[in-house]
């Protein structure tokens, strides 16, 4: 394989571009809007090790390690900030989860610290009274994803990668057709256009999960860590209906990012006021001082969700030369670098650091063909 076309210049497409270009592949990246403008611009940019199953934990941990390497030289170019995650427990049941979560992390040698109530308030005095404790995971961090996407692209460009602005309309064997009529050819085609992958390949088992976020003015001293409720996974990953979970991020410049919500099958940009209210009521419940914090704006973004929550990384089961890196749900910033590495390993016949099986493309819908 000597040439590749990558469809989509989000964080994932840019990461794949760098992996392939570095290995000497002639890369063409195609983007319909501007680099990093899709889900990559909408997300929170939390680089977080998530433990909803072994495969997810390994992919996010590997991703985090690659992020640490990538950002080491110029952390400020990514607005990289190692604020850590503090998982907050509200009751005995969640306190039990703290212990279980800590056990899993320790088993994978991930540093973490169990905080009792007193330690919790010492770390985060703005949390409301009556909480029972939490789990601090100090290596988790935040980045500003659109900048990182462009950074990755600029590195790829140094290895002769080319950027084409245009919208891919359809995929043929070793070629893509753009909406303006242009046709581009390459040995391999990589689909990395996020949630819109189903417009090109309707058989992919990807559903839209819309989220809403709020950004505030600057409050540099209110919180120090990214605060997440312990029931996050339970609340965030219901398989139907609307849900909200408390997720509050301190940006390095003092702004706060308030999340999070999930709505299936919506891709429009109209704010759902009711869901926004529910989400913010919850945030105020955890951090009462938020009530008086001034909001600059809200926005929506769309996650691309697979049925099991894991991305699809590898060759299309029925089309040789067509490769996928899609379905990152709410973790695609964290998993961009690890998934790009695992995809390049497959395309270039290199050994991979992880067992690839759980991530290989799967679950294609036959009847939609």
């Amino acid at each position, binding site marked *: 394989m000597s040439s590749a076309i990558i469809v989509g210049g989000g964080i994932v497409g840019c990461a794949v571009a760098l992996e392939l270009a570095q290995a000497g592949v002639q890369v063409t990246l195609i983007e319909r809007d501007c*680099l990093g403008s899709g889900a990559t611009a909408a997300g929170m940019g939390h680089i977080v090790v998530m433990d909803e199953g072994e495969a997810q934990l390994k992919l996010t941990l590997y991703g985090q390690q690659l992020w640490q390497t990538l950002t080491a030289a110029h952390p400020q170019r990514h607005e990289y900030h190692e604020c850590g995650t503090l998982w907050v427990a509200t009751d005995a049941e969640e306190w039990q989860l703290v212990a279980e979560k800590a056990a899993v992390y320790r088993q994978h040698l991930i540093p973490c610290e169990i905080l009792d109530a007193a330690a919790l308030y010492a770390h985060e005095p703005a949390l409301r009274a009556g909480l029972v404790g939490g789990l601090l995971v100090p290596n988790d961090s935040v980045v500003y994803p*659109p900048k990182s996407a462009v950074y990755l692209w600029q590195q790829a460009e140094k290895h002769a990668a080319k950027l084409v602005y245009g919208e891919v309309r359809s995929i043929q064997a070793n070629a893509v057709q753009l909406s303006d009529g242009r046709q581009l050819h390459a040995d391999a085609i990589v689909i990395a256009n996020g949630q819109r992958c189903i417009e090109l390949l309707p058989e992919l088992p990807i559903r839209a999960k819309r989220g809403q976020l709020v950004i505030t003015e600057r409050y540099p001293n209110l919180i120090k860590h990214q605060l997440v409720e312990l029931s996050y996974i339970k609340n965030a990953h219901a398989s139907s209906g609307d849900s909200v979970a408390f997720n509050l991020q301190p940006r390095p410049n003092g702004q706060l990012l308030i999340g999070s919500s999930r709505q299936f099958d919506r891709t429009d940009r109209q704010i759902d006021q009711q869901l926004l209210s529910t989400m913010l009521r919850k945030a105020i419940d955890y951090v009462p001082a938020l009530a*008086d914090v001034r909001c600059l704006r809200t926005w929506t973004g769309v996650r691309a969700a697979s049925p099991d929550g894991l991305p699809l990384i590898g060759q299309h089961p029925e089309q040789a030369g067509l490769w996928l890196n899609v379905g990152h749900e709410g973790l695609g910033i964290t998993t961009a670098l690890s998934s790009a590495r695992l995809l390049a390993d497959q395309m270039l016949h290199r050994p991979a650091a992880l067992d690839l099986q759980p991530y290989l493309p799967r679950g294609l819908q036959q009847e939609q063909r």
Partner: protein
Amino acid sequence: MSLNLVIVGAGPAGLAAAWSASQSKANVTLIDQYDQAGGQIWRGGTHAAPKRYQHLFAQQTELRYLNKTHVIGANADHLFLATPNGPQQLAFDRVILANGARELFLPFPGWTLPKVLGVGGLQALVKGGLPIAGKNVVVAGSGPLLVAVASQLKQRGAIVKAVVEQAPLGQLLRFGRSLAGYPSKIGQAAQSIAMLRNTPFYPNTWVVAAEGAGAVQQVRLSNHHSIECDYLACSWSLIANTELAQQLGCKLEHSFVLVDRGQQTSVNHIYAAGELTGIGGEDKAIVEGQIAGFAATGNYQAASQLAHKQAQARQFSQQLATSFALRPELRQLAQANTLVCRCEDVTFEQLQNQPSWRSAKLQTRCGMGVCQGRVCSSATQYLFGWGQDSVRFPIHPVSVADLVMESV
């Protein structure tokens, strides 16, 4: 059940709309973010408003007036409000948007110095009590607002050192001659000009830089004059506050809300009037407001009787736009290190190589700060020819608590 009509903005256009809507049995709610009604020109002095609107200030009608209330967003059938008593959702059958315009600021070296203000900004401060007597002021930019405000400042004792207008003299003279068709304008213009008898007026000239330690002390002009001053008041043009209209899905044309002869926008039941549909001042705001108020309440007969006045007002608006069109040299004023976005400290140089407004926002945070691009997005549109991005909720910053609506 009577029709629920909501009017956003209690300036001339909104008040005129409220007046004509109140001729029918509609249930009218008028909203303004300020305490007092009146908008840019009538606020702070009801005597300035034509008689037949004065009762609206006094709130003697059936009209419900929600003051100190910001409309922060909208969907297909509700407006979202930030009121002094917390957030509120207001259901509507029809909306008349009459929420006016703001000043366009273009970046030039020194434009962020203290005491460099908008022309309307300085006007408002002076109305609000800022002592201006004996102060040296340069009024610069473009449009009739310069002369109007300069004469008001002079009346209050300011020393207006110069009025600096970028439009060429020929264009200004042609505009002056065209005023013959608008008797009411002649009177205003003549008054202002008489007031400014001994004030230097430089056409075909613009500010190249404002200089000073700590605050502006001197202004350099394109005609190589330098003028010492205590204040520089600048206004390049007015731009419509289209955010709410955009959130409602109304089509824009050249950055103004597109309306038909009944002032209806591209969206059914949503009307727009005044500066929002094209800069044309008080007369245009009043006639458009009246038509919108009639049309929105089904009083088409009354609306159509104003068609001639409306056509005249729109023609005047066109003339304003062509006479005071901004010259291309103004795009060259900003230097590499001149701030374009003062909220996030983004310089001209950082923006120069960005492919689009969206990319500029994502990569430099231009327009992402406290003002949410209200200042710099129009400037970059002019400087780089960039289009606009989608409008985000809320259109004014509010507290988190103000976004928590009671269940619908």
